[in-house]
Protein backbone atom coordinates (compact mmCIF):
# COMPACT_ATOMS: atom_id res chain seq x y z
CA UNK A 1 0.00 0.00 0.00
CA UNK A 2 1.34 3.38 -1.00
CA UNK A 3 -1.09 5.16 1.33
CA UNK A 4 -1.36 3.91 4.91
CA UNK A 5 -3.58 5.25 7.64
CA UNK A 6 -3.50 5.04 11.40
CA UNK A 7 -6.16 6.33 13.73
CA UNK A 8 -5.02 7.36 17.19
CA UNK A 9 -6.38 5.35 20.13
CA UNK A 10 -8.79 8.07 21.14
CA UNK A 11 -9.96 8.42 17.52
CA UNK A 12 -9.04 12.09 17.44
CA UNK A 13 -6.15 12.04 15.04
CA UNK A 14 -5.77 10.34 11.68
CA UNK A 15 -2.26 9.87 10.33
CA UNK A 16 -1.95 9.36 6.58
CA UNK A 17 1.41 8.05 5.38
CA UNK A 18 2.41 8.36 1.75
CA UNK A 19 5.08 6.03 0.39
CA UNK A 20 6.85 6.60 -2.91
CA UNK A 21 5.52 9.05 -5.44
CA UNK A 22 2.77 11.34 -4.24
CA UNK A 23 1.15 12.12 -7.58
CA UNK A 24 -2.07 11.65 -9.51
CA UNK A 25 -1.76 7.87 -9.29
CA UNK A 26 -2.44 8.09 -5.53
CA UNK A 27 -5.63 10.10 -5.96
CA UNK A 28 -8.21 7.44 -5.17
CA UNK A 29 -6.20 5.83 -2.36
CA UNK A 30 -5.61 9.20 -0.75
CA UNK A 31 -9.28 10.12 -0.81
CA UNK A 32 -10.29 6.73 0.48
CA UNK A 33 -7.82 7.10 3.35
CA UNK A 34 -9.88 9.80 5.06
CA UNK A 35 -13.32 9.30 3.55
CA UNK A 36 -13.53 5.69 4.74
CA UNK A 37 -12.56 6.45 8.32
CA UNK A 38 -15.50 5.48 10.54
CA UNK A 39 -15.12 8.42 12.94
CA UNK A 40 -14.42 12.05 12.17
CA UNK A 41 -11.01 12.89 13.59
CA UNK A 42 -10.25 16.38 14.96
CA UNK A 43 -6.89 16.55 13.29
CA UNK A 44 -4.87 15.02 10.48
CA UNK A 45 -1.17 14.33 10.03
CA UNK A 46 0.01 13.77 6.48
CA UNK A 47 3.32 11.99 6.94
CA UNK A 48 5.63 12.43 3.94
CA UNK A 49 8.67 10.72 5.47
CA UNK A 50 8.74 8.07 2.73
CA UNK A 51 7.36 10.23 -0.06
CA UNK A 52 9.92 10.56 -2.81
CA UNK A 53 8.19 13.02 -5.08
CA UNK A 54 5.27 15.38 -5.01
CA UNK A 55 3.57 17.03 -7.97
CA UNK A 56 0.85 19.63 -8.38
CA UNK A 57 -1.92 17.06 -8.23
CA UNK A 58 -0.61 16.09 -4.79
CA UNK A 59 -1.09 19.72 -3.76
CA UNK A 60 -4.63 19.43 -5.12
CA UNK A 61 -5.18 16.33 -2.98
CA UNK A 62 -4.01 18.20 0.11
CA UNK A 63 -6.58 20.90 -0.70
CA UNK A 64 -9.26 18.21 -0.98
CA UNK A 65 -8.34 16.89 2.44
CA UNK A 66 -8.40 20.41 3.84
CA UNK A 67 -11.86 20.96 2.38
CA UNK A 68 -13.04 17.65 3.83
CA UNK A 69 -11.61 18.52 7.25
CA UNK A 70 -13.47 21.81 7.46
CA UNK A 71 -11.53 24.28 5.31
CA UNK A 72 -10.32 27.22 7.40
CA UNK A 73 -11.29 25.36 10.57
CA UNK A 74 -9.31 22.28 9.64
CA UNK A 75 -6.31 21.13 11.59
CA UNK A 76 -3.83 19.49 9.26
CA UNK A 77 -0.12 19.01 9.71
CA UNK A 78 2.17 17.94 6.89
CA UNK A 79 5.05 16.28 8.68
CA UNK A 80 8.48 14.80 7.97
CA UNK A 81 8.90 16.72 4.73
CA UNK A 82 12.30 16.42 3.11
CA UNK A 83 13.97 19.46 1.57
CA UNK A 84 12.78 18.77 -2.00
CA UNK A 85 9.20 18.34 -0.91
CA UNK A 86 9.41 21.40 1.33
CA UNK A 87 10.68 23.45 -1.62
CA UNK A 88 7.65 22.49 -3.70
CA UNK A 89 5.28 23.29 -0.85
CA UNK A 90 7.09 26.60 -0.27
CA UNK A 91 6.85 27.76 -3.91
CA UNK A 92 3.08 27.28 -3.69
CA UNK A 93 3.04 28.96 -0.27
CA UNK A 94 1.10 26.06 1.17
CA UNK A 95 2.46 26.89 4.63
CA UNK A 96 -0.29 29.52 4.63
CA UNK A 97 -2.82 26.69 4.70
CA UNK A 98 -1.02 23.83 6.40
CA UNK A 99 1.25 23.37 9.36
CA UNK A 100 4.35 22.09 7.55
CA UNK A 101 7.32 20.61 9.37
Amino acid at each position, binding site marked *: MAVETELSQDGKKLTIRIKGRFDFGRHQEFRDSYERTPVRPDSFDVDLKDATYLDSSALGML*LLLRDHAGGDNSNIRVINTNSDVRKILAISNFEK*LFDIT
Partner: protein
Amino acid sequence: MSDGHTLTVLIAEDGGTDRLLLATIVRKQGHRVLTAENGKLAVALFAEQRPQLVLLDAVMPVMDGFEAARQIKALAGEELVPIIFLTSLTEDDALVRCLEAGGDDFLAKPYSPAVLAAKIKAMDRLRRLQATVVEQRDQIALHHNHLLNEQRVAKAVFDQIAHAGCLGAPNIRYLQSPYALFNGDLLLAAFTPTGDMHVLLGDFTGHGLPAAVGAMPLAEVFHGMTAKGYGLAETLREMNAKLKRILPVDMFCCALLLNLSFERRVVEVWNGGMPDGYLLPASGDQATPLVSRHLPLGVLPPERFDERTDVLPLALGDRLFLLTDGVVETCDESDEPFGVERLLRVFSENRRPEHLFDDVLLALEAFRGRARDDASLLEITVVARSG
Protein backbone atom coordinates in the same frame (compact mmCIF):
# COMPACT_ATOMS: atom_id res chain seq x y z
CA MET B 1 -16.89 -29.19 -32.30
CA SER B 2 -18.78 -27.91 -29.32
CA ASP B 3 -16.33 -25.67 -27.50
CA GLY B 4 -14.36 -24.09 -30.31
CA HIS B 5 -14.56 -22.23 -33.56
CA THR B 6 -14.75 -23.78 -36.95
CA LEU B 7 -11.52 -22.95 -38.68
CA THR B 8 -10.27 -23.36 -42.18
CA VAL B 9 -7.11 -25.44 -41.88
CA LEU B 10 -4.59 -25.84 -44.68
CA ILE B 11 -2.70 -29.13 -44.66
CA ALA B 12 0.45 -29.30 -46.80
CA GLU B 13 1.94 -32.77 -46.86
CA ASP B 14 3.52 -34.61 -49.80
CA GLY B 15 2.66 -38.09 -48.59
CA GLY B 16 -0.81 -39.00 -49.82
CA THR B 17 -1.58 -41.35 -46.93
CA ASP B 18 -0.51 -38.90 -44.24
CA ARG B 19 -2.39 -36.10 -46.02
CA LEU B 20 -5.59 -38.14 -46.03
CA LEU B 21 -5.13 -39.21 -42.42
CA LEU B 22 -4.59 -35.67 -41.20
CA ALA B 23 -7.46 -34.31 -43.27
CA THR B 24 -9.76 -36.91 -41.75
CA ILE B 25 -8.65 -36.13 -38.19
CA VAL B 26 -9.00 -32.36 -38.62
CA ARG B 27 -12.31 -32.61 -40.45
CA LYS B 28 -13.66 -34.86 -37.67
CA GLN B 29 -12.82 -32.10 -35.23
CA GLY B 30 -15.23 -29.87 -37.08
CA HIS B 31 -12.90 -27.81 -39.21
CA ARG B 32 -12.89 -27.09 -42.92
CA VAL B 33 -9.85 -28.59 -44.63
CA LEU B 34 -7.75 -27.51 -47.63
CA THR B 35 -4.91 -29.73 -48.83
CA ALA B 36 -1.74 -29.19 -50.82
CA GLU B 37 1.00 -31.63 -51.78
CA ASN B 38 3.94 -29.25 -51.79
CA GLY B 39 5.01 -25.89 -50.41
CA LYS B 40 4.42 -23.96 -53.60
CA LEU B 41 0.81 -25.11 -53.89
CA ALA B 42 0.34 -24.45 -50.18
CA VAL B 43 1.44 -20.82 -50.58
CA ALA B 44 -0.83 -20.36 -53.60
CA LEU B 45 -3.77 -21.90 -51.76
CA PHE B 46 -3.07 -19.73 -48.73
CA ALA B 47 -3.07 -16.55 -50.82
CA GLU B 48 -6.35 -17.56 -52.44
CA GLN B 49 -8.33 -18.94 -49.48
CA ARG B 50 -6.71 -17.33 -46.43
CA PRO B 51 -7.06 -20.32 -44.06
CA GLN B 52 -6.69 -19.50 -40.37
CA LEU B 53 -4.25 -22.24 -39.50
CA VAL B 54 -1.61 -24.21 -41.42
CA LEU B 55 -0.19 -27.68 -40.88
CA LEU B 56 3.02 -27.86 -42.82
CA ASP B 57 5.28 -30.77 -43.59
CA ALA B 58 8.90 -29.69 -43.27
CA VAL B 59 10.28 -31.83 -46.07
CA MET B 60 8.39 -31.56 -49.35
CA PRO B 61 9.29 -31.45 -53.05
CA VAL B 62 9.19 -28.25 -55.19
CA MET B 63 9.18 -25.96 -52.14
CA ASP B 64 9.93 -27.20 -48.65
CA GLY B 65 8.00 -26.31 -45.54
CA PHE B 66 10.58 -23.80 -44.28
CA GLU B 67 10.30 -21.60 -47.36
CA ALA B 68 6.53 -22.04 -47.49
CA ALA B 69 6.29 -20.95 -43.84
CA ARG B 70 8.29 -17.79 -44.56
CA GLN B 71 6.09 -16.90 -47.52
CA ILE B 72 2.84 -17.64 -45.68
CA LYS B 73 3.91 -15.50 -42.70
CA ALA B 74 4.79 -12.67 -45.07
CA LEU B 75 1.39 -12.94 -46.76
CA ALA B 76 -0.40 -13.09 -43.40
CA GLY B 77 1.04 -9.70 -42.37
CA GLU B 78 -0.29 -8.56 -38.98
CA GLU B 79 -2.73 -11.43 -38.72
CA LEU B 80 -1.41 -14.36 -36.75
CA VAL B 81 -1.76 -17.46 -38.87
CA PRO B 82 -0.37 -20.23 -36.69
CA ILE B 83 1.82 -22.74 -38.47
CA ILE B 84 2.28 -26.17 -36.97
CA PHE B 85 5.12 -28.11 -38.54
CA LEU B 86 4.56 -31.76 -39.20
CA THR B 87 7.81 -33.55 -38.86
CA SER B 88 9.50 -36.82 -38.45
CA LEU B 89 12.69 -34.85 -37.88
CA THR B 90 13.88 -35.32 -34.37
CA GLU B 91 17.24 -33.56 -34.30
CA ASP B 92 17.11 -30.41 -32.22
CA ASP B 93 18.44 -28.14 -34.93
CA ALA B 94 15.75 -29.31 -37.39
CA LEU B 95 13.09 -28.42 -34.84
CA VAL B 96 14.79 -25.11 -34.19
CA ARG B 97 14.75 -24.42 -37.93
CA CYS B 98 10.99 -25.03 -37.98
CA LEU B 99 10.43 -22.35 -35.37
CA GLU B 100 12.95 -19.99 -36.93
CA ALA B 101 11.18 -20.20 -40.28
CA GLY B 102 8.08 -18.82 -38.56
CA GLY B 103 6.55 -22.03 -37.24
CA ASP B 104 4.60 -21.66 -34.01
CA ASP B 105 4.67 -25.27 -32.94
CA PHE B 106 5.41 -28.74 -34.29
CA LEU B 107 3.78 -32.11 -34.23
CA ALA B 108 5.80 -35.27 -34.51
CA LYS B 109 4.77 -38.38 -36.33
CA PRO B 110 2.93 -40.61 -35.64
CA TYR B 111 0.02 -38.19 -35.34
CA SER B 112 -2.14 -38.33 -32.27
CA PRO B 113 -5.63 -36.94 -32.91
CA ALA B 114 -5.91 -35.80 -29.27
CA VAL B 115 -2.62 -33.91 -29.32
CA LEU B 116 -3.42 -32.36 -32.70
CA ALA B 117 -6.85 -31.24 -31.45
CA ALA B 118 -5.28 -29.68 -28.36
CA LYS B 119 -2.63 -27.91 -30.41
CA ILE B 120 -5.18 -26.53 -32.86
CA LYS B 121 -7.22 -25.25 -29.94
CA ALA B 122 -4.21 -23.62 -28.28
CA MET B 123 -3.12 -22.02 -31.55
CA ASP B 124 -6.64 -20.75 -32.13
CA ARG B 125 -6.53 -19.03 -28.72
CA LEU B 126 -3.28 -17.32 -29.67
CA ARG B 127 -4.68 -16.34 -33.03
CA ARG B 128 -7.73 -14.72 -31.48
CA LEU B 129 -5.62 -12.97 -28.83
CA GLN B 130 -3.47 -11.46 -31.58
CA ALA B 131 -6.59 -10.39 -33.50
CA THR B 132 -7.93 -8.67 -30.36
CA VAL B 133 -4.64 -6.87 -29.76
CA VAL B 134 -4.53 -5.61 -33.34
CA GLU B 135 -8.15 -4.51 -33.18
CA GLN B 136 -7.61 -2.68 -29.90
CA ARG B 137 -4.45 -1.06 -31.20
CA ASP B 138 -6.39 0.26 -34.17
CA GLN B 139 -9.12 1.53 -31.86
CA ILE B 140 -6.60 3.34 -29.69
CA ALA B 141 -5.06 4.93 -32.77
CA LEU B 142 -8.52 6.02 -33.88
CA HIS B 143 -9.35 7.51 -30.48
CA HIS B 144 -5.99 9.22 -30.36
CA ASN B 145 -6.67 10.87 -33.71
CA HIS B 146 -10.10 11.97 -32.47
CA LEU B 147 -8.48 13.45 -29.39
CA LEU B 148 -5.88 15.35 -31.40
CA ASN B 149 -8.61 16.67 -33.64
CA GLU B 150 -10.70 17.77 -30.67
CA GLN B 151 -7.66 19.50 -29.24
CA ARG B 152 -7.14 21.35 -32.52
CA VAL B 153 -10.72 22.58 -32.47
CA ALA B 154 -10.60 23.50 -28.78
CA LYS B 155 -7.32 25.35 -29.37
CA ALA B 156 -8.88 27.31 -32.25
CA VAL B 157 -11.77 28.36 -29.97
CA PHE B 158 -9.35 29.24 -27.19
CA ASP B 159 -7.23 31.33 -29.55
CA GLN B 160 -10.31 33.40 -30.37
CA ILE B 161 -10.69 34.24 -26.69
CA ALA B 162 -7.06 34.52 -25.70
CA HIS B 163 -5.85 35.84 -29.08
CA ALA B 164 -2.24 36.83 -29.39
CA GLY B 165 -2.69 40.06 -27.43
CA CYS B 166 0.64 41.80 -27.71
CA LEU B 167 2.77 38.64 -27.69
CA GLY B 168 3.95 39.73 -31.13
CA ALA B 169 5.48 42.96 -29.76
CA PRO B 170 9.11 43.36 -30.86
CA ASN B 171 10.40 43.40 -27.27
CA ILE B 172 8.82 40.02 -26.40
CA ARG B 173 10.26 36.61 -27.12
CA TYR B 174 8.63 33.42 -26.04
CA LEU B 175 8.64 29.70 -26.53
CA GLN B 176 5.49 27.70 -26.11
CA SER B 177 4.49 24.32 -27.46
CA PRO B 178 1.28 24.30 -29.51
CA TYR B 179 0.05 21.73 -27.00
CA ALA B 180 0.96 23.84 -23.98
CA LEU B 181 -2.70 24.67 -23.41
CA PHE B 182 -3.40 20.98 -22.86
CA ASN B 183 -0.51 20.73 -20.45
CA GLY B 184 -2.01 23.55 -18.41
CA ASP B 185 0.44 26.26 -19.52
CA LEU B 186 -0.98 29.65 -20.33
CA LEU B 187 0.78 32.74 -21.67
CA LEU B 188 -1.05 36.05 -22.07
CA ALA B 189 0.11 39.60 -22.77
CA ALA B 190 -1.81 42.76 -23.54
CA PHE B 191 -1.44 46.54 -23.43
CA THR B 192 -3.50 48.70 -21.12
CA PRO B 193 -5.09 51.84 -22.60
CA THR B 194 -2.21 53.87 -21.11
CA GLY B 195 0.47 51.73 -22.76
CA ASP B 196 1.48 49.57 -19.79
CA MET B 197 1.97 45.93 -20.57
CA HIS B 198 0.21 43.20 -18.60
CA VAL B 199 1.71 39.74 -18.79
CA LEU B 200 0.54 36.46 -17.33
CA LEU B 201 2.39 33.16 -17.33
CA GLY B 202 0.27 30.48 -15.71
CA ASP B 203 0.29 26.78 -15.02
CA PHE B 204 -2.91 24.92 -14.19
CA THR B 205 -2.87 21.79 -12.08
CA GLY B 206 -3.38 18.69 -14.12
CA HIS B 207 -3.37 18.50 -17.87
CA GLY B 208 -5.61 17.70 -20.79
CA LEU B 209 -9.09 19.10 -21.16
CA PRO B 210 -9.64 20.14 -17.51
CA ALA B 211 -6.57 22.39 -17.57
CA ALA B 212 -7.58 23.90 -20.91
CA VAL B 213 -11.14 24.54 -19.75
CA GLY B 214 -9.93 26.63 -16.80
CA ALA B 215 -7.71 28.68 -19.08
CA MET B 216 -10.62 30.11 -21.05
CA PRO B 217 -12.31 32.18 -18.33
CA LEU B 218 -8.92 33.27 -17.02
CA ALA B 219 -7.90 34.59 -20.45
CA GLU B 220 -11.25 36.33 -20.84
CA VAL B 221 -10.87 38.18 -17.53
CA PHE B 222 -7.25 39.06 -18.28
CA HIS B 223 -7.94 40.55 -21.71
CA GLY B 224 -11.27 42.14 -20.76
CA MET B 225 -10.00 43.93 -17.66
CA THR B 226 -6.65 44.92 -19.17
CA ALA B 227 -8.40 46.50 -22.16
CA LYS B 228 -10.69 48.42 -19.81
CA GLY B 229 -7.74 49.84 -17.94
CA TYR B 230 -8.03 47.94 -14.66
CA GLY B 231 -4.83 47.57 -12.70
CA LEU B 232 -3.10 44.34 -11.78
CA ALA B 233 -4.69 44.19 -8.33
CA GLU B 234 -8.29 44.34 -9.53
CA THR B 235 -7.57 41.92 -12.36
CA LEU B 236 -5.96 39.48 -9.93
CA ARG B 237 -8.89 39.68 -7.51
CA GLU B 238 -11.34 38.98 -10.30
CA MET B 239 -9.32 36.10 -11.72
CA ASN B 240 -8.92 34.50 -8.31
CA ALA B 241 -12.60 34.89 -7.45
CA LYS B 242 -13.67 33.46 -10.79
CA LEU B 243 -11.35 30.44 -10.60
CA LYS B 244 -12.31 29.82 -6.97
CA ARG B 245 -15.95 29.79 -8.02
CA ILE B 246 -15.67 27.54 -11.05
CA LEU B 247 -12.80 25.16 -10.38
CA PRO B 248 -13.06 22.01 -8.28
CA VAL B 249 -11.27 22.23 -4.92
CA ASP B 250 -8.19 20.34 -6.09
CA MET B 251 -7.63 22.49 -9.16
CA PHE B 252 -5.84 25.82 -9.18
CA CYS B 253 -3.60 27.93 -11.36
CA CYS B 254 -0.07 28.93 -10.45
CA ALA B 255 0.57 32.29 -12.06
CA LEU B 256 3.11 35.05 -12.38
CA LEU B 257 1.72 38.41 -13.43
CA LEU B 258 3.60 41.53 -14.45
CA ASN B 259 2.55 45.07 -15.04
CA LEU B 260 5.35 46.75 -16.94
CA SER B 261 5.22 50.49 -17.10
CA PHE B 262 7.74 51.56 -19.72
CA GLU B 263 6.81 55.19 -19.09
CA ARG B 264 7.43 55.13 -15.33
CA ARG B 265 10.17 52.47 -15.61
CA VAL B 266 8.75 50.16 -12.97
CA VAL B 267 7.43 46.64 -12.96
CA GLU B 268 4.79 45.31 -10.62
CA VAL B 269 5.13 41.60 -9.87
CA TRP B 270 2.69 39.12 -8.38
CA ASN B 271 3.84 35.51 -8.15
CA GLY B 272 1.57 32.80 -6.80
CA GLY B 273 3.12 29.36 -7.02
CA MET B 274 5.30 29.80 -10.11
CA PRO B 275 9.04 29.12 -10.15
CA ASP B 276 11.18 32.24 -9.68
CA GLY B 277 11.09 34.62 -12.62
CA TYR B 278 14.09 36.93 -13.05
CA LEU B 279 14.82 40.57 -13.57
CA LEU B 280 18.12 40.69 -15.42
CA PRO B 281 19.66 44.16 -15.26
CA ALA B 282 21.16 45.63 -18.42
CA SER B 283 24.14 46.59 -16.27
CA GLY B 284 25.12 42.93 -16.07
CA ASP B 285 24.55 42.90 -12.32
CA GLN B 286 23.17 39.81 -10.70
CA ALA B 287 19.61 38.75 -11.54
CA THR B 288 16.84 39.59 -9.08
CA PRO B 289 14.52 36.62 -8.57
CA LEU B 290 10.79 37.26 -8.76
CA VAL B 291 9.82 34.97 -5.91
CA SER B 292 6.46 33.34 -5.30
CA ARG B 293 4.90 35.04 -2.26
CA HIS B 294 1.30 33.93 -2.70
CA LEU B 295 -0.91 30.90 -2.95
CA PRO B 296 -1.89 30.08 -6.54
CA LEU B 297 -5.04 31.57 -8.10
CA GLY B 298 -8.27 29.80 -7.26
CA VAL B 299 -7.27 28.52 -3.82
CA LEU B 300 -8.28 31.27 -1.40
CA PRO B 301 -11.76 32.76 -1.05
CA PRO B 302 -11.99 36.42 -2.17
CA GLU B 303 -11.93 37.80 1.39
CA ARG B 304 -8.57 36.17 2.10
CA PHE B 305 -6.94 36.76 -1.26
CA ASP B 306 -3.76 38.82 -1.20
CA GLU B 307 -3.23 40.89 -4.33
CA ARG B 308 -0.23 42.82 -3.03
CA THR B 309 2.52 43.17 -5.60
CA ASP B 310 6.24 43.81 -5.45
CA VAL B 311 7.39 46.90 -7.31
CA LEU B 312 10.85 46.97 -8.88
CA PRO B 313 12.54 49.79 -10.77
CA LEU B 314 13.50 49.16 -14.39
CA ALA B 315 16.24 50.54 -16.59
CA LEU B 316 16.40 50.60 -20.36
CA GLY B 317 17.63 47.27 -21.66
CA ASP B 318 16.70 45.31 -18.52
CA ARG B 319 15.17 41.92 -19.24
CA LEU B 320 12.42 40.01 -17.50
CA PHE B 321 12.65 36.29 -17.84
CA LEU B 322 9.73 34.03 -16.90
CA LEU B 323 9.43 30.26 -17.08
CA THR B 324 7.18 27.36 -16.14
CA ASP B 325 8.38 24.44 -14.05
CA GLY B 326 8.59 22.32 -17.21
CA VAL B 327 11.83 24.20 -17.94
CA VAL B 328 13.73 23.42 -14.75
CA GLU B 329 12.14 19.97 -14.57
CA THR B 330 13.28 19.06 -18.09
CA CYS B 331 15.20 15.85 -17.51
CA ASP B 332 18.07 14.29 -19.40
CA GLU B 333 18.35 10.59 -20.24
CA SER B 334 19.37 9.63 -16.72
CA ASP B 335 16.37 11.50 -15.24
CA GLU B 336 18.52 14.31 -13.89
CA PRO B 337 16.55 17.59 -13.96
CA PHE B 338 17.92 20.70 -15.70
CA GLY B 339 17.43 22.57 -12.45
CA VAL B 340 17.67 26.20 -11.35
CA GLU B 341 21.46 26.08 -10.94
CA ARG B 342 22.03 25.37 -14.63
CA LEU B 343 19.65 28.15 -15.60
CA LEU B 344 21.45 30.64 -13.36
CA ARG B 345 24.75 29.55 -14.86
CA VAL B 346 23.43 30.35 -18.35
CA PHE B 347 22.44 33.78 -17.04
CA SER B 348 25.82 34.47 -15.48
CA GLU B 349 27.81 33.18 -18.46
CA ASN B 350 25.82 35.27 -20.93
CA ARG B 351 27.83 38.17 -22.36
CA ARG B 352 25.43 39.38 -25.01
CA PRO B 353 22.00 40.03 -23.52
CA GLU B 354 20.27 39.90 -26.91
CA HIS B 355 21.35 36.24 -27.16
CA LEU B 356 20.18 35.25 -23.70
CA PHE B 357 16.92 33.68 -24.83
CA ASP B 358 18.73 31.57 -27.41
CA ASP B 359 21.41 30.68 -24.89
CA VAL B 360 18.75 29.23 -22.60
CA LEU B 361 17.14 27.31 -25.47
CA LEU B 362 20.52 25.98 -26.57
CA ALA B 363 21.35 24.92 -23.02
CA LEU B 364 18.04 23.05 -22.79
CA GLU B 365 18.59 21.44 -26.16
CA ALA B 366 22.12 20.43 -25.26
CA PHE B 367 20.77 18.98 -22.04
CA ARG B 368 17.89 16.98 -23.40
CA GLY B 369 17.64 17.41 -27.14
CA ARG B 370 14.52 19.56 -27.06
CA ALA B 371 12.23 21.40 -24.69
CA ARG B 372 9.28 19.57 -23.13
CA ASP B 373 5.72 20.31 -24.20
CA ASP B 374 5.04 21.93 -20.84
CA ALA B 375 8.14 24.13 -20.88
CA SER B 376 7.15 27.72 -21.57
CA LEU B 377 9.67 30.57 -21.62
CA LEU B 378 9.14 34.30 -21.95
CA GLU B 379 11.53 37.21 -22.18
CA ILE B 380 10.58 40.87 -22.22
CA THR B 381 13.08 43.63 -22.87
CA VAL B 382 12.56 47.05 -21.37
CA VAL B 383 12.38 49.54 -24.24
CA ALA B 384 11.87 53.29 -24.35
CA ARG B 385 8.30 53.04 -25.44
CA SER B 386 6.24 50.00 -26.31
CA GLY B 387 3.17 49.47 -28.47
